[in-house]
């Protein structure tokens, strides 16, 4: 393993910044990555953790600042324009993505040696590669046959193979982006043992996770990011989990949000879910929703919010033990169309891949969800056009030419069009998933005003968001999810950043052992 005898960092970021277009996502980050140390990056969704490690590993070009590297030959120097994934891997800096990056149809050996195949003349030396692969895997306490095809392996084993791949390349810096999100508790334990082993061998580990107890366990140093700024660097023994949760948030609410008066106590319950569950994703979720109410759903990435919402509207199947009531009637939507016809609509968080047809025009997209409203057999194109013209005005969608393809609209206008598309079906219960992801502040406040208006007009709204400010600013109550469980519904004074974060990170829960919520 590499020489890290001198106590100088392998990687040193100086004033590192990154912008996507006009949006600055990282500001002047100074960071040292030392061999033999586990460095945890901690921050809310969107704080810039993933972007930062992508810069370190050459997945994204640096906008400004420098990255200083202790080269494999012992010399030091700044990385240049040619710092890309290949250059980073040559220098032993490897990023393992949360969504693993293996060739599924190839064997474990093939993957471990992909791009670095051992040859004998012109031909591959398969025997030697299998033998080496077995050695690598064994040293990671993973006893599988390296000839096995990747697609037949468990996710945790796949991750081992990713690590073995990094190991085979003599990596000096190993960056893990939320590695335990896909692992069970036991599998995570194996991973931690492995991390400790690599650390003893002098490898620098950069570790991103939302799970505070994990970080408390394995990190030597904790670096906190917030809104693209580095807030502080702490020895992990200086912090407890509460401190971490507090440091991750800690902002002031702004005037971005409209006043949004609470619905009266007499408001009718329009949606009620009891013991909601989904195989492998959601173990227990119970809540109810009143007309005129905005119920926020907060949780960290992977907590199961989207899966739960998709199950409610019929895009996934709820377990048979779940009970869903809409307007006092027990329902089990078999498709999104039946939910829509019942007045329940879902606004997807992924406007580009599941929300809009980017290569189609605005009107085509606008009416797609509600076509049945103005058609018997033939589509009433006149009425469609009228409704479309109306929606363009109401939602203030700005496209120079209404004939252009949706893919050419700005993100903000796309999001407004997605709202128009969903609302064209006149739903009374609207489930909105991440309405402002990647959207500028101006459009954001328009969307917030629109949501508040909907609620004031008696619509019942579920607002799923990873943006803490948004959830607090708009919601009357906040449901918090953690690892597939709805761990609490917070009201009044409980709706406060640190308290929400405690629930979201699993430090607090209102659930009782038997799975019934204590509240409601």
């Amino acid at each position, binding site marked *: 393993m590499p020489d890290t005898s001198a106590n100088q960092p392998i990687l040193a970021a100086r004033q590192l910044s990154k912008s996507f277009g006009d949006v600055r996502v990282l500001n002047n980050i100074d960071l040292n990555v030392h061999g033999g140390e586990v460095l945890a990056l901690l921050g809310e969704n969107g704080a810039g953790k993933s972007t930062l490690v992508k810069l370190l590993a050459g997945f994204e070009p640096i906008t400004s600042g420098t990255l200083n590297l202790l080269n494999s030959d012992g010399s030091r120097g700044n990385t240049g324009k040619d710092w890309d994934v290949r250059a980073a891997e040559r220098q032993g800096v490897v990023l393992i993505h949360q969504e693993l990056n293996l060739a599924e149809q190839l064997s474990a050996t093939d993957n471990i040696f992909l791009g670095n195949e051992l040859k004998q003349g012109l031909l591959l030396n398969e025997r030697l590669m299998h033998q080496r692969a077995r050695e690598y895997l064994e040293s990671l306490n993973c006893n599988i046959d390296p000839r096995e095809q990747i697609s037949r392996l468990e996710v945790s084993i796949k991750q081992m193979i990713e690590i073995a791949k990094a190991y085979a390349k003599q990596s000096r810096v190993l960056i893990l982006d939320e590695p335990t999100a896909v692992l069970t508790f036991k599998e995570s334990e194996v991973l931690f043992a492995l991390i400790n082993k690599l650390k003893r061998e002098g490898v620098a580990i950069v570790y991103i996770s939302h799970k505070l107890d994990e970080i408390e366990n394995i990190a030597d140093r904790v670096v906190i990011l917030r809104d693209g700024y580095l807030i502080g660097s702490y020895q992990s023994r200086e912090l407890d989990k509460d401190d971490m949760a507090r440091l991750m948030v800690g902002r002031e609410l702004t005037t971005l949000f409209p006043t949004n008066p609470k619905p009266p106590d007499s408001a009718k319950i329009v949606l009620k879910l009891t013991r909601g569950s989904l195989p492998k994703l959601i173990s227990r979720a119970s809540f109810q929703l009143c007309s005129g109410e905005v119920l926020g759903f907060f949780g960290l990435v992977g907590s199961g919010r989207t899966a739960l919402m998709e199950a409610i509207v019929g*895009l996934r199947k709820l377990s048979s033990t779940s009970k869903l009531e809409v307007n006092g009637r027990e329902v089990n939507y078999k498709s999104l169309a039946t939910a829509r016809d019942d007045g329940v609509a879902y606004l997807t968080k992924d406007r580009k*891949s599941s*929300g809009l047809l980017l290569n189609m025009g605005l009107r085509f997209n606008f009416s797609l*969800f509600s076509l049945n409203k103005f*058609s018997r057999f033939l589509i009433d194109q006149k009425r469609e056009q009228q409704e479309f013209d109306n929606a363009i005005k109401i939602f203030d969608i700005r496209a120079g030419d209404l004939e252009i393809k949706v893919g050419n609209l700005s993100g903000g206008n796309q999001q407004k069009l997605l709202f128009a598309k969903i609302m064209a079906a006149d739903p009374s219960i609207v489930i909105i998933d991440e309405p402002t992801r990647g959207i500028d502040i101006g459009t954001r406040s328009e969307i917030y005003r629109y949501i508040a208006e909907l609620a004031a007009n008696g619509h019942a709204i579920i607002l799923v968001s990873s943006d803490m400010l948004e959830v607090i600013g708009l919601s009357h109550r906040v449901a918090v999810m953690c690892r597939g469980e709805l761990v609490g519904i917070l009201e009044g004074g409980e709706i406060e950043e640190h308290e929400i974060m405690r629930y979201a990170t699993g430090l607090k829960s209102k659930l009782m052992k038997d799975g019934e919520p204590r509240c409601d």
Partner: protein
Amino acid sequence: MTDRNFFSKINLKAAGPFVALFALFMIGVLVNDAFLSVGNITNILARSSFIGIVAIGATFVITAGGIDLSVGAMAAFISGCMIIIMNALSNSIDSSIVIILLAILASVLVGAFAGLINGLLVTRAKIEAFIVTLGTMGIYRSLITYMADGGTLSLNFAIGDIYSEVYYGDLFGIPYPAWVFLTIAISGYILLKKTVFGRHCFAIGSNEKVALYSAIHVDRAKTITYILQGICVSIATIIYVPRLGSASGQTGILWELEAIAAVIIGGTVLKGGYGRIWGTVVGALILTLISNILNLTDAISNYLNGAVQGIIIIVAVYLQRGSWRKSN
């Protein structure tokens, strides 16, 4: 509106197939005087109707992001079924018209059912359309060969005599097959461009996930496109059987490729999301015109028919992709 504006408004991509059809027509006129004869023109219309009708079905399948390779073999299989049914009924039913109508009914049922099977295999069994229809293509092709015992199935002479009117007869001087083609084309146009189902085909072919999140019954709509394709094949077969009055393992050979070619020449996008019925009609006419013109001239051997068609397909798609315009 200035002239310049006017020309930029004309969509070159959309007009392309029509321009090509016109150009081929002019070439035909120049090559041989016989080209413009009534006999030749009606011949072109009647011949293009088989591929044309099949291709209209294929326009739906392809627009919704699928593909159907089984149509040629399916046509042969349905021909065989029709002939066997008519021959069998000729002993028990006196009226040839009734026999023919029963065979037509059976043909539509078999076509719709064959389409349903393709559709269910694609949507329920989640097998790629290419593989499913490659498989059913083999099945139908070998079934017709088996039914004909390796030879040819021939239609009962008396029935064939009456039935032949469907192919050779005409209304206002235009052959019946051309009328059928026109009717199917108009219905197809309305269905694809004016109805909810048509919109859904575009959406599914464009992005299946978005379609699903837009409350579209994706599997149902895809299955219907294959059923429509099956029905179109059966209609093409109904007007094809009286032409020769026979069916064999060679019937409908390469129809699937000609139909797909007509669809693509017409401007429908092979990977789905955009379809044009009138383009497909023109595509079918173009393919028929090429072979007709080669028949009428000695300049190029008739054996090179496939080569000329191949060149036209590649050029047509190249022009439609529009990359040549950007580089200017």
